[in-house]
């Protein structure tokens, strides 16, 4: 039985937010940090309280900590040691393996995320701009009352125009494929697979192998928490649009190239179900837009190239042990929309997302290291994920087609990692425990 009263809301429910803000904090002394944890605890919805008030509430807050942050709060050595090695090291230390190389490397990150002074994140999801602004002001007061707590950086996020559904700056529909946790009370949409054991996402519960693993100590921390990988990914919209124009003469051809890179039309319609032309109604229909497989329906990649983003990040029935590799994704877009037809203005825009899982090394790092960045995934030879892989202009993208495939060489980097970090997302009792350390 999931303990909904103790689990932070972000793990189980997506907030109906149009604005957001992430604040990255450093604790210069333990007492100040603990005072902040105590104050912020009061603002955090559990999964239960969020569900109860979702129609009237206007803001939802989440707090999480780096390993250095747990140390700064005064957690003892035995407990610190009990956390998984990759979490202790932090994302920046694992950059090479994650593909955060070249311009993606931590030395170019912004906002102090690569620093060992990064201790905590507070995530605000707000129903509208007015609530966002009110909460920012309120949090300034909280921080001012906690001596030694410094805001290293902030990132404001907002749903962007022109479409009336969640989409990124490239125009791709977002939030299409999410795993469902057994016992959370949700029905998976057709094609999404069975609900997964809670232990894949929440520590302290049995996972898909029936094992309770990766639980930190003491007991209070060992239940109802999770791990989050944060990724701030700049999207180079001008470069992306130039690429589409370069490889497609008509608007239809350009749309097809965009679809081949992703594995879905920008409307969300799966290429497997609609290989030749877009079908926006299909893209918008959750009962149909995830209901397909690859092994039987598209084994050679004539619809979805073997290296397309969606096929790499969720290979469905073409990967072993898929149930051990699933992740929950939350996040939003930041930066202004670049209107169609405008030249790139040099302003940074992108997505800043959280990948939530019970084992960073087995789930998030595997996806980055193998699915996104293994150049020989599916024997492709010289490819990486065309959207999020590490690119330096020397890789290619192959589009299977009869009689002869199309091969695009010199694929540019459409995205750049601008920052990232690993956080532990404690349960609410665990937050109270952290606030009470001395």
């Amino acid at each position: 039985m999931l303990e909904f009263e103790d689990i932070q809301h972000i793990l189980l429910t997506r907030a109906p937010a149009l604005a957001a803000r992430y604040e990255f904090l450093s604790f210069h002394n333990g007492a100040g940090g603990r005072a902040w944890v105590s104050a912020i605890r009061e603002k955090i919805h559990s999964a239960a309280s969020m569900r109860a008030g979702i129609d009237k509430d206007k803001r939802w807050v989440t707090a999480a900590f780096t390993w250095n942050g747990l140390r700064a709060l005064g957690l003892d050595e035995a407990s610190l040691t009990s956390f998984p090695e990759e979490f202790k090291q932090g994302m920046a230390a694992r950059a090479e393996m994650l593909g955060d190389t070249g311009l993606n490397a931590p030395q170019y990150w912004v906002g102090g995320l690569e620093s060992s002074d990064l201790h905590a994140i507070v995530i605000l999801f707000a129903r509208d701009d007015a609530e966002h602004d009110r909460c920012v002001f309120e949090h300034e007061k909280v921080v001012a009352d906690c001596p030694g707590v410094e805001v290293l950086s902030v990132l404001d996020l907002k749903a962007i125009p022109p479409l009336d559904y969640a989409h990124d700056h490239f125009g791709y529909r977002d939030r299409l494929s999410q795993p469902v946790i057994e016992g959370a009370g949700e029905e998976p949409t057709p094609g999404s697979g069975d609900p997964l054991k809670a232990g894949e996402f929440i520590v302290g519960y049995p996972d898909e192998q029936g094992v309770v693993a990766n639980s930190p100590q003491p007991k209070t921390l060992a239940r109802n928490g999770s791990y989050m990988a944060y990724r701030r990914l700049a999207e180079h919209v001008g470069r992306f649009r130039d690429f589409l124009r370069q490889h497609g003469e008509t608007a239809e051809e350009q749309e097809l190239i965009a679809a081949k890179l992703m594995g879905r039309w920008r409307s969300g319609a799966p290429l497997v179900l609609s290989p030749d032309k877009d079908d926006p109604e299909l893209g918008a229909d959750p009962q149909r837009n995830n209901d397909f497989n690859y092994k039987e329906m598209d084994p050679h990649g004539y619809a979805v190239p073997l290296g397309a983003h969606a096929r790499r990040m969720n290979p469905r029935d073409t990967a072993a042990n898929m149930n051990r590799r699933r992740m929950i994704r939350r996040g939003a877009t930041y930066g202004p929309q670049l209107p169609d037809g405008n030249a790139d203005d040099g302003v940074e825009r992108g997505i800043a997302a959280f990948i939530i899982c019970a084992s960073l090394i087995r789930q998030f790092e595997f996806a980055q290291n193998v699915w996104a960045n293994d150049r020989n995934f599916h024997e492709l030879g010289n490819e990486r994920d065309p959207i999020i892989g590490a690119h330096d202009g020397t890789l290619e993208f192959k589009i299977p087609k009869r009689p002869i495939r199309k091969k695009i060489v010199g694929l540019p980097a459409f995205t750049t990692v601008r920052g990232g970090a690993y956080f532990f997302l404690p349960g609410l009792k665990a937050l109270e425990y952290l606030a009470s350390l001395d």
Partner: protein
Amino acid sequence: MSSESKTQDWSKPVAMAIPKGGYFQDKVEQGRYGPIFPKTPACYGFSILAKIIPGREEVFYKYAKSIEETIAAQPDALAVLQLHYLRWVLFPIKGDTYFMYQGIFDTDFDKYTEDAVTLFGITGLRTVFENLEDFPMDWQTNPGAFIKFVRDHQCPSFLEYAEYPYASATEVKKALKLKAAFSTMLDQMQ
């Protein structure tokens, strides 16, 4: 054929000397669980050597029969490992029995470590390892300990040779399929 293979000509045999320790120090690639042993003309691979618990030899021979049956019943049981060959060897050193488990793969073992651990549970591969000295008996709940055992007992090659270098198992199988298809075509032309 992958671009990598095109630049690495399969028609010309290659031997590669590997430095002491198993790594080329100037280009060590980091995996999730530590440094990755380099790809050679004979692809990726490992050679795990360990002493068996005295008196357990018979278990190994029974295990061989059970693996034979497992693969006969489910030929793709080990597909995820992207294997070419596996060899299991028992040999004596000063009255003790040692075990060698040697595998040749198309991918570095680090990438699919967890899949390998899962396979251990479902295919009976566990049997031999649980009869090796120092093998962590809590491997199912402690994948880190399992991986450490494998890394601690890995003996890297100092020389590898391939008659058809860098060809993957998939490419070899595709070539054989093509040969069979041509053969069928010629039959149809009679």
